[in-house]
């Protein structure tokens, strides 16, 4: 087996929340040495996010933190102290890739901005990200991705046409935007190896997210049409939606496109009399009568639990699947067959789940490693990776620089 794809790549991860940390974890899965910088005075928001072991908050008791941060070495630095800043500086010089997601200007305050780091580490790939980018009149407005979905147009298009907006459960813009930034980081690293040139990357999560609405942005320019909420309706396919099934909050999502799928769907339902009615025989007919169709389809889906409905339709060649809850995800036979979730032992949380990256490399598969406790590797990183003497390390502890 080959070494992991990113073995030997050194990453200084000053980022927090979701966007930077997930990139760092994905790089660690593929063999990079990732050092995450934290402070006991300013906990990563994931360390204070539920769920907690036993329902009790604590920096090493949140399941979220290791979920987003794993395979990394964790150190703590109190960057309000000059000697801690010196350590951060050494780490920046050590790194091939530096990740940070502070409010713009914060790294500069510590003398750790890109122009400053480049002076001593000219080949560094330096990545900054925040909601709206490093420049411009709104660059320093704080905010989380859960709110940025509002600015980026996602919230407006989530929910029902006859009601106000809902909002996507997770910080959609975080996950959508981080992938653009992450892909560019890996390509920039390869470019650097080839040309010797490092560079600076500025990811505005707002800007990147807009790419996932690009066709409708073009449509607005051409036709003046403003995309709105459609529930689960498709502009073309009918029936399409999430249909109620037997059991607690059980739903089966399905989408029936052309005539061939409609025939498969009818067969799967046992070819009920209503489905043979002429008004449902054509695509236009089904689209025109979709309200009625929804009611009739629900009557059939209500006869089975969601998993059974979905399996009947899957076998018949219809696009269908369970609307999976956080519980269903654990039991999904497809995810199980692919070994997507894996349990690893964690020092404070015990055995709990992590998941693989959604891309599976045949020659250099990822190696999943557990998350770290707060400050777990401070000594190792400072004395082994940065070569600090034991005396100096002890001094820093005494001064509180490593809090």
């Amino acid at each position, binding site marked *: 087996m080959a070494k992991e794809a990113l073995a030997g790549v050194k990453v200084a991860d000053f980022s927090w929340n979701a966007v930077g940390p997930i990139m760092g974890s994905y790089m660690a899965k593929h063999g990079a040495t990732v050092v995450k910088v934290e402070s006991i005075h300013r906990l990563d928001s994931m360390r204070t996010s*539920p769920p907690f072991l036993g329902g009790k908050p604590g920096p090493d008791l949140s399941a979220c933190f290791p979920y987003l941060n794993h395979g990394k070495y964790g150190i703590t630095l109190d960057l309000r102290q000059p000697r801690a800043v010196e350590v951060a500086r050494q780490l920046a010089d050590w790194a091939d890739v530096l990740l940070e997601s502070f409010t713009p200007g914060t790294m500069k305050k510590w003398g750790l901005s890109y122009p400053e780091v480049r002076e001593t580490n000219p080949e560094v790939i330096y990545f900054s990200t925040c909601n709206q980018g490093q420049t411009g009149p709104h660059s320093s*407005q704080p905010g989380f991705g*859960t709110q940025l979905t509002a600015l980026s147009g996602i919230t407006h298009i989530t929910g029902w046409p006859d009601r106000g907006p809902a909002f996507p459960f997770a910080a959609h813009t975080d996950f959508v935007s981080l992938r653009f930034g992450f892909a560019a980081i890996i390509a920039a690293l390869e470019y650097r190896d080839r040309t010797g040139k490092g560079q600076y990357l500025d990811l505005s999560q707002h800007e990147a997210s807009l*790419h996932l609405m690009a066709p409708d*942005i073009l449509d607005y320019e051409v036709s003046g049409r403003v995309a709105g909420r459609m529930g689960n309706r498709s502009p073309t396919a009918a029936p399409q939606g999430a249909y109620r099934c037997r059991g607690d909050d059980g739903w089966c999502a399905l989408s029936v496109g052309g005539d061939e799928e409609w025939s498969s769907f009818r067969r799967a339902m046992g070819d009920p009399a209503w489905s043979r009615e002429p008004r449902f025989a054509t695509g236009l007919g089904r689209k025109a009568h979709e309200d009625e169709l929804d009611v009739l389809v629900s009557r059939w889906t209500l006869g089975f639990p969601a998993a059974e409905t979905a399996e009947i339709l899957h076998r018949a060649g219809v696009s269908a699947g369970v*609307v999976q809850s*956080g*519980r*269903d995800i654990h039991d999904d036979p497809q995810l199980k067959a692919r070994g997507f979730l894996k349990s690893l032992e964690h020092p404070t949380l015990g055995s709990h789940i992590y998941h693989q990256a959604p891309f599976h490399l045949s020659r250099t598969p990822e190696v999943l490693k557990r998350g770290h406790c707060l400050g777990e590797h401070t000594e190792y990183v400072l004395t082994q990776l940065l070569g600090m003497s034991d005396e100096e390390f002890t001094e820093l502890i005494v001064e509180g620089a490593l809090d």
Partner: protein
Amino acid sequence: MTKAGEGTLLGPFRVLDLTDDRGYLCGRMLGDMGADVIKIEPPQGDPGRSIGPFYQDIPHPEKSLYWFAYNLNKRGITLNLETADGLEIFQRLAGGADFIIESYSPGYMQELGLGYDTLSRRNPRLIMTSISMCGQTGPRSDLRPSDLVASALGGGMFVTGDSDRSPVHISIPQAFLQGGEEAAIGTLIAHYHRQRTGEGQYIDVSIQESLYWNVMNAPLFWEFEKRILRRSGIHRTWSSAAAQKHRVLWPCKDGHISFTLYGGKIGATTNRAMMEWVSQEFDVPEALRQKDWDAFDLASTTEEEFESFAGPAGDFFLNHTMDELYQGAIERNMMLYPVETIAEIMVDPQLEAREFWQKVEHPELGRSLTYPGATVKLSETPLSITRRAPLIGEHNIEIYEGELGISREELRVLKHNGAI
């Protein structure tokens, strides 16, 4: 082009893009980085050309705005892989390619004799990426794809929407695009390995698995608390152990805004500024005005505390427009955002100040269209749009004659036999 090519990230590398809408974005991302992406379509045009919306609502294969958006920075050729000539030409192209991306039903490439094992024998440096609904293996690998069903299986949908109706997805489909993004990351990680070792490899991307972050901590709540998180409209239900509901969206004078109380230092600035701002117009309970926000802990906040805030804040928001509230939030360095539509996004001064939008000429339409610009700003090798999406077979002559040396007479035969 030289192999050390500078100026763009992927200038020296060639991509053969066999995807449909399940994978367009992957090739687009590599194209943005300067790779020579050749989109290979069947002779009648790519199936994605039938996806709307359409330019001026004219349903025509050269007017799909969906096609336009995700096939920028690609050249286009037609090739029928189900003919012997087509297969032979593809194998020649594959011999010189750095990347192949495909999103056919699992197994189809092997059926054609174009599986990775076969192609890599001739080109061991080749990286081949397959994007599919649920992955190449497992009991659901043959599931017929749809964006809605992917969102359902991914898990984000169950927890999104109003509690008295069915779960919903985001109305502009996001699942296939997210699969394409993840594919680009995996492809580039393999590229990094290949450039160091000379070894290519095969990558299996599952769209369902790509949506995993959309469900965030819901599987963890099941694992740690045996609690199933459910959709609850404009509220969040998991931030606080003591409160059932924590409001996120609020109506204002002319739309909606997003605002929530947050804990910690970052929340304190916002919460304090908000109490002050609201109390200029409405009575805010003394307990909230005097509260030590620096010590505020979201996880232990009660529903009563949220409610005592919601009354005056709700009135205050209704008294103001989205724009007033957003401007006020920016001045006060607060976390409050307007629920914008595409119309408002298009005139966002921040995007204008960063010169985000990029005009691209469409000579066939006699006009330019405004596209979202660089996904991320790079100082040394900026991403840019260098060509609009290709017309059907636009680069057939350039590539078949110019690069492969196929004569016009041979092209005539290929055309007649339905190979191109």
